């Protein structure tokens, strides 16, 4: 299950996003905040409970609390960077060319460029693009982490030499369901992975089409 936070002051907008996420990312549990204060509270609660967000969709222009005027706010994003450095941050804005927005994307996300994206609210297809990007990131990150846990040397591109043992795993006991579950996950989300990840997966698994469905087997 993924945990997502949407911070967006326009209720209609946040509902549209929530609906998109429910349809295209059914494993996600979504929290919604309408202002900076509520967003901060949800972040802190998530930390207290040890249930960190995997992704945060963050409007750039937000009111501090309900009833106040929305203003450009980078503080929540900075807090996310500190509290949940592994979370992907998707910024929403109708002011892509605003200097402060551009400066924030350049400076704050310089070190986390693979975990931050921005979308223009003026683009009518942005919810589809945004959720597509989240699928790509979340499913990709999850399968990579499972792959690494099961097969620590899956990153290695070199063929096994005589002195190296080419084992499936370094874990104890039966791996039946660890492998089967990973195979099913890859089958279900093969289309969401980028080419780099597909190559990495294919070092360990054979991915083939069997009567119209993707079947994953051990090489």
């Amino acid at each position, binding site marked *: *299950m993924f945990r997502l936070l949407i911070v967006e002051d326009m209720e209609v907008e946040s509902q549209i996003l929530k609906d998109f996420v*429910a349809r295209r990312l*059914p*494993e*996600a*549990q979504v929290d919604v905040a309408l202002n900076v204060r509520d967003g901060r509270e949800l972040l802190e609660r998530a930390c207290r*409970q040890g249930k960190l967000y995997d992704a945060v969709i963050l409007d750039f222009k937000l009111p501090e609390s309900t009833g106040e005027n929305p203003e450009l706010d980078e503080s929540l994003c900075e807090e996310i960077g500190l509290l949940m450095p592994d979370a992907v941050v998707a910024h929403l804005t109708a002011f892509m060319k605003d200097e402060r927005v551009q400066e924030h994307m350049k400076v704050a996300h310089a070190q986390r460029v693979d975990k931050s994206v921005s979308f223009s609210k003026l683009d009518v297809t942005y919810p589809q693009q945004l959720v597509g990007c989240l699928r790509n990131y979340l499913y990709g990150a999850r399968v990579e982490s499972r792959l690494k846990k099961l*097969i620590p*040397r*899956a990153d*290695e*591109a*070199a*063929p*096994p030499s005589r002195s190296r*043992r*080419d*084992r*499936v*795993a370094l*874990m*104890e*006991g*039966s*791996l*039946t*369901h660890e*492998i*089967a*579950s990973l*195979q*099913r996950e890859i*089958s*279900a989300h093969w289309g969401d992975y980028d080419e780099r990840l597909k*190559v990495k997966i*294919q*070092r*360990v698994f*054979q991915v*083939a089409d*069997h009567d119209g469905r993707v*079947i*994953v*087997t*051990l*090489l």
Partner: protein
Amino acid sequence: MALTFRTQHLKQKLTESLKSEHFVIHYGMRNPREGRGLASDGVRDRVLVLTYLHALESLYNTMTGHPWGREPPPVDGSKRTHVYVFGDNPITTFDSNTLVPEIYLPCRSKEPTTQSELLRAAAEAVHEGAHLFNFRKRPYYDLSTEPWVWFDEGIAVLMETLVAAGNPDYCRFLVDWIDNPETPLDDEEAKYQAGMFMRYLVKRVGPEIVNQVWNDSLPHEDPIEALQRLMPQPETFLSADPAVKDIFGSGYCIDPYFIWDHESAALAPDIFFRFGERAVSETFVLTPGKTAQLEDALDHLACRYYRFYLKKGVKGVRVELMPEEGAAGTKLKGELVVVTTDRTRLPAEALSQSGSESGPLSVAIGSLNPDSIDHLVLVLSNCGVKSSAKFFSDHDDVKGYAVSVSAT
């Protein structure tokens, strides 16, 4: 493309084979009489292979015979299931071309003695063999298999206890079952512990229920839904209703506390002697006029035990349970059991709502004689579920509650 991990490559190195009626085991020698040795992918001698073969055939006979009556696993043109012996880990998987299931079993072991090595080998062969039979109904490449993983593992561990009777190897799965009763039955990290649940089901209801749930569940059902539907009358599998003695809360959660009791469906003296009794969350000593209070939380399909010793003069005990989300409609269930000095138990008293809807669940037991009572145990269970087939649904997890116990 460079291939770092290649089971097909390893399989090709296994040039020896041993056949039985239903299996063909492919293996190689660590030190063959001639040619290149397989080092850590070869077996020391044929004893391990013969042990595997015997265990697999025993499992085959059990699962195709009464009461299991399973259909044989799918096979290829060889009419036998292929078993490959290499590496360190047992795996049941399937062939990339035919999608026919096959088994990989380890060629080596870190067990310190030959006896424990072979006991483990027999247990692992039986375990993977059970997966092989289960594969027919739920192939591992089928996405709908995911919610059934814990049930599949439970059956595999159950088969270890039935087919390899007297083989204590399955006990390696039990330490967490003893230590963490608060772990959900269907927890991903505790799937082998489901073997204890299967064992309980078989004792309480019979082996047919395990088979029925696996074979006769509907396509949209997860194991809990199938257990609810298929439980024979008058039994109910899961209910937080204090008036209902359900198999889970009032049975599987309570009985294992009495693992040493011959009256208990969870009797397991061997496990008790090895690991002791299940973990108790907190113990209190009650004196007349004293009130003990605690706050805690519980995940779905799990339980906690709270123990109360009575000092002289205690005549009655009242227990109140207040779920954080209110008592109305709560999935938390509380039952209080008196354990006598001769270690027998009196019938469990369920906590129920007696007053207003916003009031706590409670039970009061009077006319107590501390001289004849060893202790009281409050068994709290969470009869809520994780909707495992629908990952995005809320789970009945971390349900907070407060308990107050007063002695008079």
